[in-house]
């Protein structure tokens, strides 16, 4: 277990080696956090109830996304391309576990700062954030269920995107398209239930709402108005499917990749 702890703490040390980079990273996150908050505050300035519900949603989704979306697996694509992955392949450690525990460090750091940011913003806009949590035993259970699914789904899909490095050096374009797609379809900018009903219902069949929207919606609203059974089925389906594809791609990628000249 100590090796996994060291993987996580080594990542902390790496981050703190470049202090300015660290500060700018947080500043960038803070700006992208402010944009939807102020946008939706302006949209619902006349409707206090909707304004509060939406604010509560965006504050929670900032915390949820800071935990789920932060990942270091983007490095994997360049490691495959420049051959540095060889250093991991020859060690008696699973590459997935290695990156999972690096991600854990990234997530802990991101989440800690996200908490501070949410508290600061709540204070600035005088929003009683904690009074808008809608908690019950069932909701807490569902929240952690969807949060766990989201964590692994994001981890698997992010690694899969890095595996593009096995077949093409152009790894950034697909990842960028995916990032844009996920920002729109996972509720980061628009609460998905604001979308037309047929669009929302269709989205539930895709993996996207299970990244950030579902866990956030469960605890940010009194009555989330969701078909929970359908959501559990499809979130589990996408998780298992992405895991199977991940394992097959890894095996095939290693067998076919040449590392030629690397």
């Amino acid at each position: 277990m100590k090796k996994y702890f060291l993987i996580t703490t080594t990542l902390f040390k790496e981050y703190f080696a470049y202090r300015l980079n660290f500060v700018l990273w947080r500043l960038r996150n803070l700006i992208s956090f402010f944009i939807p908050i102020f946008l939706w505050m302006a949209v619902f300035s006349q409707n206090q109830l909707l304004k509060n519900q939406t604010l509560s949603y965006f504050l929670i989704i900032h915390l949820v996304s800071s935990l789920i979306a932060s990942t270091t697996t983007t490095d994997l694509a360049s490691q495959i391309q420049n051959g540095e992955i060889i250093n991991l392949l020859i060690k008696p450690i699973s590459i997935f576990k290695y990156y999972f525990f690096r991600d854990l460090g990234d997530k802990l750091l991101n989440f800690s700062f996200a908490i501070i940011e949410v508290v600061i913003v709540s204070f600035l806009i005088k929003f009683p954030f904690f009074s808008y949590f809608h908690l019950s035993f069932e909701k807490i259970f569902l929240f952690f269920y969807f949060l766990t699914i989201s964590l692994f789904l994001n981890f698997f899909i992010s690694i899969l995107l890095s595996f593009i490095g096995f077949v093409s050096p152009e790894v950034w374009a697909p990842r960028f398209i995916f990032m844009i797609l996920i920002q729109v379809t996972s509720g980061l900018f628009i609460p998905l239930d604001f979308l037309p009903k047929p669009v929302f219902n269709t989205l539930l069949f895709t993996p996207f709402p299970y990244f950030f929207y579902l866990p956030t919606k469960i605890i940010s609203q009194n009555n989330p108005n969701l078909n929970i059974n359908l959501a559990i089925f499809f979130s589990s389906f996408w998780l298992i499917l992405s895991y199977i594809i991940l394992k097959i791609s890894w095996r095939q990628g290693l067998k076919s990749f040449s590392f030629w000249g690397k």
Partner: protein
Amino acid sequence: MISVKNLTKIYKIYKKTGNIFTDLFFRQYKDLVALDDVSFEIEDNELVSFIGPNGAGKTTTLKILSGILYPDRGKININGFYPFDKKKEFLRQITFVMGQKSQLFWDLPAIDTFLLNKEIYQINDNQFKKTLDNLTNILNCQNLINKPVKMLSLGERMKMEFIAALLHSPKIAFLDEPTIGLDIFSQEAIRSFIKSYQKEFKATIILTSHYLEDVKKLAKRMLIINQGKIIYDGKLTDIIKKFSQNKYITLNLDKEIDKKNLEKIALIAQYQYPKVVFQVKKDDLPEKIAIISKNIPYTDITIEDEKIEEIIKKIYKK
């Protein structure tokens, strides 16, 4: 023991046709045979060097032996393991040092990589301390392990790479051009370290290098590989017997002699008064020495074999 039989590796490489449409939608690939039916055996505690020109298949061989690459054909057995299975017991026995790639965390001191490797390879505290002390002593670099890697010179970084790679005392070490880019002092330090490590830890070492000095100073056995085929497998000293038909007689002349007169004695490889170098067939050596002694006034004479570099160049050209 390492046993390799009929190993073949074929890379598929993208072939540009020049037609944008075809290149974009119907890419064509061609096969490049990196290793062609290669077989060899390496005993425990042997130090073997692979040499060959760029793209000959040296690094590919090492990558297949360490389980990084999947071979297209052939059998490999390393101490009972098939490398590509990547069994943990196998990975604990090997290491791979690449002169052009680093396993160290660039922004952190090397000790952070060492500590992580300690946990990954499950080395106990006493063993870790003992091995680290030992390796830092041999490499004389105790003061470097707490310095950020990005602040180390290439030679210093290479020393840290070796420590990181050898902390778990592997039985088999694959060293891919470990002295590349180093100055002569660092090259010498790394060479003497490799020698000491092999002796002390009874390790099997397979080395690739472009520097013949590495091979001359380290390995008794050499495998020359070219275009994916092993064209020589034997002792370094035997290569001269097998491939060199010539000897070189160097004279320091007493007085200047016309080149035409010298050419009557033997083929001149080099002439710049007072030094003249004759290239003679091995079998003709006693006769030529007798002629020289009788006809040419000189102050000094030396007889040498053909340089290994020259012999290997000839082998590559074949």
